[in-house]
């Protein structure tokens, strides 16, 4: 357990007792640059809290990997997957040495079931995520290949 309360986009919205309970499940790791923290198409086993360093969120397309956003400390990954029980839609790769905190997904979902007030906090975090996704959609190239449309 960590003596100093952590600050991240999710924990900052949770009651102290919930943060304390989550802290009991945490595992802190330091990973080198280029580590794939989350893989597209796989259901992540943990929530990943980025404490230090930066990561790139990459979307797989037929034209290769599309960089969607670079996140720094305080970002939490795996919330959507935990809520929906589905696989990740993106790859998350460390750009430099990162310190991450892992919280087992099953522990987190169990806590949410016990304390459904967490959903309001989740809605706030997911709302910010959706804004990023929609911004990406706005910027995405839309021109079709005319040759194939004949």
């Amino acid at each position, binding site marked *: 357990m960590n003596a100093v309360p952590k600050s991240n986009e999710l924990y900052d919205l949770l009651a102290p007792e919930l943060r304390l309970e989550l802290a009991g499940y945490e595992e802190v790791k330091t990973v080198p640059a280029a580590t794939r923290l989350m893989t597209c198409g796989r259901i992540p086993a943990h929530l990943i809290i980025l404490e230090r360093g930066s990561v790139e969120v990459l*979307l*797989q*397309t*037929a*034209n290769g990997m*599309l960089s*969607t956003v670079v996140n720094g400390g305080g970002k939490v990954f795996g919330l*959507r997957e935990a*809520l*929906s029980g*589905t696989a990740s*839609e*993106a790859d998350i790769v460390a750009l430099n040495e990162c310190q991450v905190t892992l919280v087992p997904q099953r522990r987190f979902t169990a806590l949410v079931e016990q304390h*459904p*007030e*967490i*959903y*309001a*906090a*989740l*809605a*706030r975090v*997911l*709302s*910010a*995520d*959706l*804004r990023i*996704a*929609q*911004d*990406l*959609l*706005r*910027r*995405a*190239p*839309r*021109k*079709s*290949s*005319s040759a*194939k*449309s004949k």
Partner: protein
Amino acid sequence: MASADHFRIIENCLKCPLKEDRLFCDLPDDVLQDLQEIKATSFYPKGALLSLEGQPPRGVYILCTGRAKLSSTSADGKSIILRIAEPGEVLGLTAVIGNTPYEATAEILEPTQANFISRQDFMRFLDKYSNVGMKVAHQLTHNCRCAYEEVRSLGLSKSVPEKIARLLLQWSEHPLAVAKKKPGEIALRVTLTQEEIAQFVGSSRETVSRVLSDFRKKGWLRISGATWFIANKPALEKLSNA
């Protein structure tokens, strides 16, 4: 022609016959009672604008019946359709929760009933009831997944027929129940113009027209006014996954 019954407003959320079918509205009676007190119900004609991109977030709209087109302006200044919102969806969530400007313009596609909740009331409602938080979190998760899927699809350089096939298959997830259809057909209500479909798939109206004509000739699609019938779903699936 639409009947008077078609335009009937359901004022009371507690007595709404559709509540169990709607993602957001399937809530316990005490929560619906509270919702009843904070929402304002209105009926909007086709073309009405619920929200404008860039405007401050006044509140959210729950689509009770009808659908809305969510559009935005692309980096190169063109109007792009982000997606079609279906009945039961809450519009304006990201803006209201984040207290940021509306990120899309929501335009009514067919006569629609929507419940408006002011930002202040909605945030209080969200914090008061965990099951509202759950519904909102699940809708945001779904919307986020759809947005990433759309980005992935746009980056795939698919042909226009492939993209239109995919669009029709998406719409077929919300089939029209009452239409007169032949066995095996899936009925859809399509209120977008060919120009709007072209905006959706990043093409021209002429190309969309040609592709739809081709689908009809092949017997994959039947069009009767605003009601479209998917007659060969496997063929569209095959094309979409090509």
